[in-house]
Structures are given as C-alpha cells and as structure tokens.
C-alpha cells in the first residue's frame, strides 16, 4: 500500500480523524477594525440572489462579500511591508506544498485566562520544548488560548477598552526565535490577529507580522478547536483561495489527527 492509499484508508477507517479548525463565516463574526481614518476590511456579508422564488424558481444562491482577512484566514508575506518584495509572497504564488504542514500546539490557555494581554516568550517556548520536544522546521506553531470559545460574544472576543484591544499574542523574542532558530512555516492564533491586541506598542510594532512575513512565512488567525489537537503530531491543511496578488483569504483549516 502506498503512503497515500494508507492515508485514505486511515481516514475512512477512523484511524486518522479530521478536526475542523475553522469558524463559520457569518455576518455576526467579529471583524478587525482599524482606526477610522484608515481603510477597513469588510466584515462578512451575504445577500440572497434567489430562494426558490420569483427571482429564481428552482434554486437558492447568494452573493457574499468580505475582506481577504475576514473570519478564519491566512496571511501571506505580501500582506506586510516587510515582505512586500519577497518572491512568491502572494496567495496565488506561494508553492502549494507549503499549504500542508505539521503543527505544534503551545497551550497558553491558563495564562490567557488570567491575563488578556499575555505574551508568549522564548522562555515559554523553551519550557514547552523540554516537555514535548523540539519544534521541527517547516511547521506551523499554533498558540492555543481557548480564546475561540468567546466567538459568540463579540464584546468578549474583541475585548476593547479605552486603550484598545486586549488579546494574547507572541512577544518579539518568541517570534524572532521561531523564525531564526526554528525555521517555522508560520504562526497561528485563535484571536483576531497573529499579534497581541496591544502589539502596536511593542518594538517593532506587530512583531509577528513584521518578522514572519519579513521572512516569507505565513499567519493563521481566528482558529478554532485548537484544544482538540495534541501538542505534536497533527498535520494542518491550510490552503488559501488563489486570488490574483492576494494578501490572504478566508479559508478552511483542517487538522489531521491520529486517533488514540
């Protein structure tokens, strides 16, 4: 049996199961908001074209609109100024084999529960590696915070106050470590951005975007169900839409996990 046929039969037989790491695209899903003077990403909107009615008697279909960065979505290197000149940096030019890769899930759920501004540091990563082993190259590092469970409560999910948004994310040193020392594929979070809510005030601002995309790596945001993944061993399929010169897109993120 070839590796692929074994994969197929494992899936059919339940030896390998699929965990959906994607939120449903709906108008109510929180969208990122920038300062009002700037251009804004569209939230998800959907308009019925017809529904077995005078507009189309035997069919139902919709038109929808959203930004490239709406809902569960993929960030390509061209999305950030630090990655704008790299080769193959848009969703339509990234080599497709990059869309599949192993995942290392860092559990920060307790820390995030206590501190909405929790920043994942190098020390945290090194402590995690002591327990679970070294993060291998060309893999996704996913920061589990259980933040996805707040998705029905936009107030809690966005978590704004007078100083802005408060959501967990990586510290500068952690990002640099993952890029320079571990050669990761990309970084994924359950929150609205790969960077922390207050990352504007880090140096440089938005370090995950800056360093990841600056090194030609990727981002995944608004992931769900990371708490169903093992710390190691899962394989993530994350293939964005092939938008001409696209900076990202909403996508279906699937994790293949071996059943116990």
């Amino acid at each position: 049996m070839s590796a692929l046929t074994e994969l197929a039969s494992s899936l059919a037989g339940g030896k390998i199961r699929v965990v959906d790491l994607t939120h449903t695209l709906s108008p109510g899903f929180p969208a990122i908001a920038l300062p009002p003077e700037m251009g804004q990403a569209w939230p998800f909107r959907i308009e019925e074209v017809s529904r077995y009615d005078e507009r189309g008697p035997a069919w139902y279909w919709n038109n929808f609109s959203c930004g490239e960065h709406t809902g569960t979505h993929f960030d390509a290197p061209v999305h950030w100024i630090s990655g704008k000149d790299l080769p193959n940096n848009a969703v339509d030019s990234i080599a497709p084999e990059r869309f599949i890769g192993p995942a290392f899930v860092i559990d920060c759920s307790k820390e995030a529960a206590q501190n909405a501004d929790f920043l994942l540091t190098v020390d945290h990563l090194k402590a995690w590696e002591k327990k679970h082993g070294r993060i291998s190259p060309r893999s996704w590092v996913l920061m589990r915070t259980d933040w996805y469970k707040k998705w029905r409560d936009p107030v809690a999910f966005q978590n704004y106050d007078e100083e802005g948004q408060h959501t967990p994310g990586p510290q500068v040193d952690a990002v640099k470590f993952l890029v320079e020392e571990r050669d990761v594929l990309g970084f994924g979070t359950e929150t609205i951005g790969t960077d922390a809510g207050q990352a504007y005030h880090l140096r440089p601002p938005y370090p995950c975007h800056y360093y990841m995309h600056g090194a030609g790596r990727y981002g995944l945001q608004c992931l769900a169900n990371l708490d169903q993944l093992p710390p190691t061993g899962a394989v993530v399929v994350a293939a964005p839409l092939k938008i001409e010169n696209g900076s990202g897109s909403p996508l279906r993120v699937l994790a293949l996990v071996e059943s116990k």
Partner: protein
Amino acid sequence: MTTPLERPRRKNPILRTRQPTAPPAVRSRVALGLTAAAARGVFELQVCRDCGATQYPPREACRACLSERLAWKPQDGLGQLVSETMLHHSYELFFRERLPWRLGMVRLDCGPVLIAHLHGDVAPAPTRVKVHACLDKAGQAALFAAPEKETPNMADDKQLREMTCDPKFRKVLVTDTKTALGQALVKSLVEAGADLVWAGHAEPWKKFAGFDELKKLPQVSLLPLDVTDSKNVRELAAEIGGRVDILINNAEHHRTYGIANRPGVETARAEMDVNYFGLLRLAQEFGPAMRSRGADGQSSAVAWVNILSIYALTNFPPHGTFSASKAAAHSLAQCLRAEMRPGGVRVLNVYPGPIDDEWNQTLLPPKLSPAALARAVTQALKQGVEDLYPGDVAQEWLARWRDNPKALEREISV
C-alpha cells in the same frame, strides 16, 4: 377643553387591524404650492406682485387685477372664524371613520375666506383664530384653525393628531445610538413621552461613551443593529417591526474625502453601504409593517425620519463622496415617501448643516449641536412636517439653493 391623551391599552391581538384610509389627495399644480410650504411647516399664500392682493384658493391670475405675477409668501394665519359646522356625514372613508368632524369658515385678516379643520378648543363663531398649514394623512396641505393662544393639551385634539406625528405614548426605533446625536434623540423622545425607545447600535464590542446612561433609562431597550447587515436588519424587523410607530434612521458613515484625495472606492462604498443601502435595507424590512399600521389606534405607526444632510442638495466637495451618498439617500427617501403615503406614514427628511461631531471637527462654526438637532427633530414630529432644514447653516444653504442652485454650487466649491 381638549381631553389630554391617555396611554392606550395594549392592543387586543386577535382583532383585525384597521387599514389606513386617506382624505382626498388630488390637487391642482398651483394648489401644490400650499403643500410645498406646509411640508416645511409654513403657511404660505399667493400674493400679487402688482397689486398686493392675497389669493385663496390658489389660482393662476390675480382675483383683483388679473396679473399672473403671483408669489407665495408666508402668512401669519390670523383671522376671524365666521361660521362653523360639525360634520356628521361624509362621502369619504377617512372622515366617515372619524366623525363627528369640526369644520370652520375663516376670514383671514389679509382678506381671503377659507375652509379649515377646526380645533375643538376654538370658541363658537364669531371668534379669533390662527390658521396653520399642516399636512394631512394624504400628505397634502390641510389648513387647520386653532385658538390664537395655546390652550392646555392643545396637541391632543383628536383632529389635530391626524396631522401630526407626536411621539407621546409611541414606540420609537433609533437606529444608531452610539453617536451623540443618537443619544440626544433618545433623550429628546423620552422627554416627549415616548413609551419605548429601541436603541440600535452596531459593532457592540466597541463600547461607546454614553452607553451606561442610555441603559439607565427605563424606556430604553438596547439592541444590536448594523444597517449593513441584511440578516441583522431582517431579524430585528421580525422581532420588533410590528410595534415600531416611529423609525428614526440616523445611522451614518461619514468621512471627509472628495474624489482625488482618497484612492480606491472602499471609503465611498462604506459611506454608500450605510447611508444609502442601510436606508434601503431598513425600508424593505420595516416599511411594510409600518405602512399597514398607519391607522392602528392611538399609537399607530406614524413617521419615518431620515437624517440626511444639507449636502444632499448640493455636493460639498471636501466631503464629496459623503455628499453623494446623502444625495442618493435623499432620492431614495423620496421614493420611500411615495411608498409610505398610502399608509398615512409621514416620511420626515432632515437636512442639517454640519453637526458638531468628530468628523466635522475642522469645519468652522456655526455647527449644529446634537442636542439642538434632536430637539428640532422631535419638534418636527410634533408638528407633522416632512422637510426639515434645522439650524442656521441649513437654512442659509436652502435659501441659496432655492434662489439659484448653480450659484450655490459655485459658491461652495471655490
């Protein structure tokens, strides 16, 4: 003595809802001059430019000197009630359903004799009266003779209420209460006696200033409402649409760009999506139920208010795309007015000059405070007008626009 209005009892849900009927609506073109002024709350009659004679009914040639140079001029409406009758019979459904109905014959101090609806507090003829030009349920000018001086509960007169859109004991939806204007509207409506104000707000995760004060008001019910989200609008209409008596759409997306100083269409599209399509969504979802409730008892559906902008009449290039979106909304609001008229629901379009808010921060005064605008809107509802140009800037722009729209176009684009 006018009996003061009492809070109506809850509607019996198993009874058929009375369908709206309207007074006769046909008028000649020249008579529509009366309606044009009444729409702004003004009583105007034709006055001959050559001999000064005031004319009524409206006509094509001066009744005194045959001149065709007749100009519409504001009137004070003062006059003498010379005869009256209490109608116990009518040929039209609207009046049949509202008998008995009091009518008066008034001789204005300026000369003409007119027939008017007569307020219950006016003493028997002969007596002094003041004639007002209201809009009736058909949306046409209706002359109304009332006492010269205000009487207690004057607005609660059964016949006068058919001309006005008083918020008292009514339920109101204000679509955007995140802004100072929205909150001022809520406050003003509560003070005017509204029973319930649904306070809509988009992006509820952005907690806004004034939120806590709004929550404290017992009449207020905060509801998520994003006028760019068809599903949200539809579901909200399904929940509360059958109870909304007055809908005030003040949802607005305002940026300060023309054409050349903002690349791309994203900002302009966002303005259109709220200012124009937002109105369209609301009108599609809330309109039909309101239209069918135009005669639904004392707290009937009675008004739809659109906060537009004086920039809808002539584009203000520094806020060029915003102006265009307001112009689109103005046109659609006229469409809405035509569609709501058969239900007797007044569409009140408000054209303020710059409001004293964050997006008009760099404009020089005079600017309209949200509180003043809210008061003007509430007053306009109580008066039953349909076109409101509140504040000094709006009034001046309107005067310039009516005088010579092309000159205004040049004046503000210099």
